[in-house]
């Protein structure tokens, strides 16, 4: 009887000790909601790929040390099937059933907003790369108790992106044109993102001395020749193709055939895709990426990142750079958790992030969030050497310090 008791006691303490040893590696639950199928899969996949890369790197480097214990990130990835109902169901599952502490996603503005209503109510942090969140991130919403207090916008405010893009485009194109360009036409898809982005870009161009005509096309247009002919009739100096990348890739060759303008700007078309499609123009063409180009970045950190990103199996597409809207913030979040020392104090984590300056990959300048939970960084613009498909010259313009006249900011 005594021997049994001793054996039990020894066995129990071994078990407890073993558990203590294994319990050192606890689980940091992080959710990802993105389109892994459905029409927005090309953007959604990049979020998942960025999350996997960041989680792997953090875990390989030893995990996150919170309050004396080591936590390994465990990603809970949910496909939103490009459907808002599934997004909500997934968010509810992650927040209420799984119990994640933070969620990264989504690629669609509407979905991110619907999701924020769920995460905010449960004090779960949310990192969304939608610049259109700027329209709702006001003082009341981000204050403690507001529904966006735990949400962070990881894409720069649109007027900033527009500002640095406009300056970059004009700086690259002006030397190649017979006279300084004065008349720009902005050609954009008439959906939520298109409407939002163009409203800022037009103001940015005007602030840089351009007279601007805005032409919005129905989002599922395939034959652009009627509208392009109309634009040609306006005799523009530059035609700026904004959102979205796929439509631009359809419209641009048609524009070249119809010889619509002496110079072009293509937003959201990465030099890598331009080269792959073997597009070629005798007129100067500028490209910009969201936010940095994977085909031609001047920064070693970015080149490094993309090498690892593609090595892990991610697909090469016009949206691949969207991954950088999500990647750095895993590290910021981990750092904030380590500073706060606890998983159960989301308010302190939010404060820590707001005070943090972090040197990430997406920007040569340290990242930080402003009072409205938004980041700032420059956008890369590059010029395709005429008559080539893969010779590029890049330029990076810092964003303007303030919104231009007529721009509501946000």
């Amino acid at each position, binding site marked *: 009887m005594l021997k049994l008791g001793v054996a039990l006691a020894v066995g129990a303490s071994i078990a407890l000790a073993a558990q203590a040893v294994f319990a050192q590696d606890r689980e940091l639950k992080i959710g990802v909601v993105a389109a892994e199928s459905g029409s927005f899969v090309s953007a959604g996949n990049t979020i998942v790929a960025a999350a996997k890369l960041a989680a792997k790197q953090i875990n390989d480097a030893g995990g996150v040390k919170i309050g004396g214990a080591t936590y390994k990130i465990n990603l809970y990835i949910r496909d939103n099937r490009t459907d808002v109902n599934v997004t909500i169901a997934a968010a509810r599952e992650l927040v209420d059933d799984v119990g994640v502490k933070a969620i990264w996603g989504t690629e669609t503005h509407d979905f991110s907003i619907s999701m924020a209503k769920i995460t905010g109510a449960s004090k779960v942090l949310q990192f969304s790369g939608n610049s259109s969140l700027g329209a709702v991130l006001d003082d009341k919403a981000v204050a403690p108790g507001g529904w966006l207090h735990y949400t962070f916008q990881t894409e720069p405010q649109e007027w900033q992106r527009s500002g640095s893009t406009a300056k970059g485009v004009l700086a690259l194109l002006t030397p190649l044109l017979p006279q300084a360009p004065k008349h720009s036409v902005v050609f954009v898809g008439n959906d939520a993102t298109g409407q939002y982005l163009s409203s800022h870009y037009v103001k940015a161009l005007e602030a840089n001395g351009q007279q601007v005509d805005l032409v919005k096309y129905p989002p599922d247009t*395939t034959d652009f*020749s*009627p509208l392009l002919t*109309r634009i*040609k009739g306006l005799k523009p100096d530059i035609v700026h193709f904004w959102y979205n990348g*796929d439509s631009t890739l*359809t419209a641009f060759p048609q524009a070249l055939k119809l010889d619509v303008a002496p110079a072009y700007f293509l937003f959201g078309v990465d030099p890598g895709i331009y080269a792959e499609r073997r597009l070629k123009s005798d007129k100067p063409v500028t490209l910009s990426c969201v936010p940095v180009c994977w085909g031609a970045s001047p920064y070693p950190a970015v080149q490094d990142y993309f090498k690892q990103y593609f090595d892990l199996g991610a697909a090469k597409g016009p949206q691949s750079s969207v991954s950088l809207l999500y990647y750095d913030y895993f590290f910021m979040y981990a750092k904030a958790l380590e500073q706060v020392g606890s998983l159960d104090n989301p308010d302190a984590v939010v404060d820590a992030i707001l005070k943090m300056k972090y040197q990430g990959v997406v920007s040569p300048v340290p990242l930080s969030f402003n009072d409205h939970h938004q980041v700032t960084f420059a956008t890369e613009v590059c010029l395709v050497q005429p008559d080539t498909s893969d010779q590029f010259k890049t330029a990076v313009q810092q964003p303007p310090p303030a919104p231009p006249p007529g721009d509501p900011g946000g």
Partner: protein
Amino acid sequence: MQIFIQQLVNSLSVASVTILIGIGITLIFGLAGIVNFAHGEFLMVGGMVTWFLVVSGLNFFVALVGAMILVGALGFAAERGLFRFTLDRPMNGFIMSIGLSVILQHVVIRLFNEVQKTIPDPISGVWMVGGVDIIAMRAVVVGITVIVVAITYLAISRSRYGMALKASIADPDTAALMGIPVRRYVTGVFVYGSVLAGLGGALMIALFPITPFTGSVVIIRGFAVSLIGGLGNVGGAVLGGLILGLVDGLSAQYGYPEWTDAYSLVVMIVILIVRPQGLLGGTLGPRAT
């Protein structure tokens, strides 16, 4: 003035693709009595097959023929396997075709993913005629369409086959009693219409990129064109296609760009309400009121 002519020229090429679909639908709908909502997907499959064959190294025109044959076979299978059973209840056939269109779209996505597909221009070059740019490939599309329309018109309107078809739809029982092999004719029309859709798809991908959802964008045009012109009326389909193409081109030039699609939608609705029998008259279609 130059711009106006340029818009007209632009409209012709897209109108051509719409006409090809429209003719297929007007024949199938008007003369075979089958409402096939998946007809747009037949076009899309034609385009995808063309892309696949071209990417595998075949010449575009060879691929085009390949697409026509394959989509024709697809049409044959659909008619024999599905629509044959709902000839008496066209509404059921219509619902089935919705299911078929969903299946085709997603099977294509599974096989080829949903990124847009594009092929290099089979015929490159732009001709400048009197200040108007005529893109060579578009001219070829128009040319092919004209030939196909002519053949179809002669085959349907001027031949005994065509008259037999019209008889079959007007009164199937009597036609059968008179010795017309109604079932076989129905299959024949369906296959022919499908072949036209395949051709349309091949021509379309020569002009612009297509996605698995391209079919659903063009199908309504096709139905509207056939109803506007008159069911079973080849000339009517051509007229309908030209009208819609014209509205597109002119509204893009002179209207509000973001309302571009709306103008042709309104025209479709108005003509359908005001002249339900079609501009040039046609058959009553399957048990129409």
